[in-house]
């Protein structure tokens, strides 16, 4: 799995993207694991139990809002994008 970071999320991880070795069950467990690795990212990912309203998570280019939200299952060769809600024009 590849995880990519954009906009003001990038400084929180220090990288544009990383290969994530293990396959994670779903988006929620992946984000929890990412938050463990990148502490600065932790507070951006969830608001209580819900995905934060300040981020957009894409799985293979599709927002999880139109898949199964935080419970969207993940496959080993998926691409997961973490975008801040940021920008228009």
């Amino acid at each position, binding site marked *: 799995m590849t995880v990519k970071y954009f906009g003001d999320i990038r400084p929180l991880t220090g990288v544009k993207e990383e290969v994530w070795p293990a396959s994670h069950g779903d988006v929620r467990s992946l984000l929890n694991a990412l938050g463990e690795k990148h502490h600065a990212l932790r507070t951006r990912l969830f608001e209580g139990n819900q995905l934060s309203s300040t981020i957009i998570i894409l799985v293979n280019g599709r927002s999880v*809002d139109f898949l199964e939200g935080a419970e969207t299952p993940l496959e080993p060769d998926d691409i997961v*994008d973490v975008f801040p*809600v940021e920008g228009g*024009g």
Partner: protein
Amino acid sequence: MNGWIGTVLRIDLTTGKITKEPLVKDDAVLFLGARGLATKMFTDEVPASVEPLSPENKLIFAPGPFTGTLAPSAGRYHVVAKSPLTNGIAGANSGGVFGAAVKYAGYDALVLEGKAEKPVYLWIKDGHVEIRDASHLWGKWVPDTTDLVRSETDDDASVACIGPAGEKLVLFASIQNEMHRAAGRGGVGAVMGSKNLKAIAVRGTGGVRVADVKALEAAVWAARAKVAAHPVAQGLNRHGTDILVNILNETGCLPTRNYQDGHFPTADKVGGESLTAKVLTRKKGCFACVISCGRVTRVNEPKFAGEGEGPEYEAAWGYGPDCGVDNLDAVTKANHLCNELGLDSISAPVTIACAIDMAESGVLPANEFDGLDLRWGSGELIVELTRRTGLRQGIGDKLALGSYRFAEMYGHPEYSMTAKKQEIPAYDARGIQGIGLEYATCNRGGCHVKGYTIAAEVLAANNVRLDPREIKGKPGLVKAFQDMTAAVDASGGCIFGTFGMVADDYAAMLSALTGVPYSPADYVKAGERIWNLERLFNLKAGLSAKDDTLPERMLKSPIKTGPSKGLVSRVPEMLPEYYSVRGWDDKGVPSLEKLLELQLAS
């Protein structure tokens, strides 16, 4: 008057006659100002059959009631004329300082008529108005023109001018103010050039009266707080509009190589994160703006060296992925050139992309290549073609007609990615259904900004998250964005203020400013009124339902690669419902009932 000044300045360039007329208050109340007032005046005075580049066309510059006040991110002005590109109504919006200067000089609108015998410029200092010889300026690019005019008038004057592109009647020539801000779309710069009008310099020492100062202050501070807390507004401050490249690409909706595809693997190299890291000098804002999305940029690489502002997302996309280019220096240089020559930075690259596509596909004969290697992916080429287009040299003389007329010349109009002959911007309509409907129905032709459903379909702004692939509900969504945007434009607001402010905020500020009570519904209704007025003009000018469509490529050729592979635009399925929610008949003609409701008929 409060909010409005109460005076319209009319200049007949043929006779040199200068008149000041009272603003018609009823028009101001119903149409607000800027886009609304200018469109009302234009459609009252100019027959829809007018030739756009003839002296009979008029060019109206108008700020809004908010312009020049503390209303946040609301210091803009609008330019209205008949468009030589679409042959429908042109309405181009710009920021900077010019609009505020016009208000402070004492005017709600500048109406420019006729044609000067020789190049002239206008010098407006409060009540003093002069038409001055501009022969020594003709041929000069925007930066030199601006500097020279200021040196001859006032160092603090705000200057709106055309570059060589407007002089030479490039059909998508812009009007530039403060050099780098553009009333960009629809060829308003060509209309200005057709009048032999090179520049307008304005200096004002007046102010704007406020009906209820305390109420306005309260409304302004409340509105400012909302914008300051809004993630999109703050994101625009951090990265500018170019931050959009990556999210569009990752969703597979970044039009690539003239809409041949929707995904460009190296897009990140021309995105906002890269712009910030590589070419950004500092941020910049317009008059009374609390966002400051402007980017001052410099390229050091000798081949593309220069300084200026931008690229915005549309220009970075147009010169980048749409031309197959991933060189940020080249893209930045091409955008700088658009400002310097006075060219619309969407129509220019999309026209260039069309020519490259035709060359690569073999439908543009090799002897028409003007000695250039017309191919995807060349930074040098996009810069050189921009230069030749702005100066109407070589192949640029034909590119100056825009992609539709260019492609049609060779028998292949289907290569032109336009709606109503205006180049379509940077969001793939095949993957994002609502914005496709906006492109197809916008009164000024292929345009995103007058109905920016991207906010809801891609950006999760205001935590509204609509499925871009869905068509259900999109007609109503597009109408809502179009109406609200028209009201914001007409009141002098920048649409980026809507990342934070809603109709309630705008209505509260407008009521306190003008003393005229506007409910939020009244405010949006003014926008709907303006939309319908523009539509009526376009229908009289000969546009019709058959023009409310997209190129075949977007309707029939699916995106080839990436996450949105296989999708096409479903505009034809949405159009009947769009007409219906608008209160129009099945040919897209506003019903009498709707016109009566909007006070556009009696």
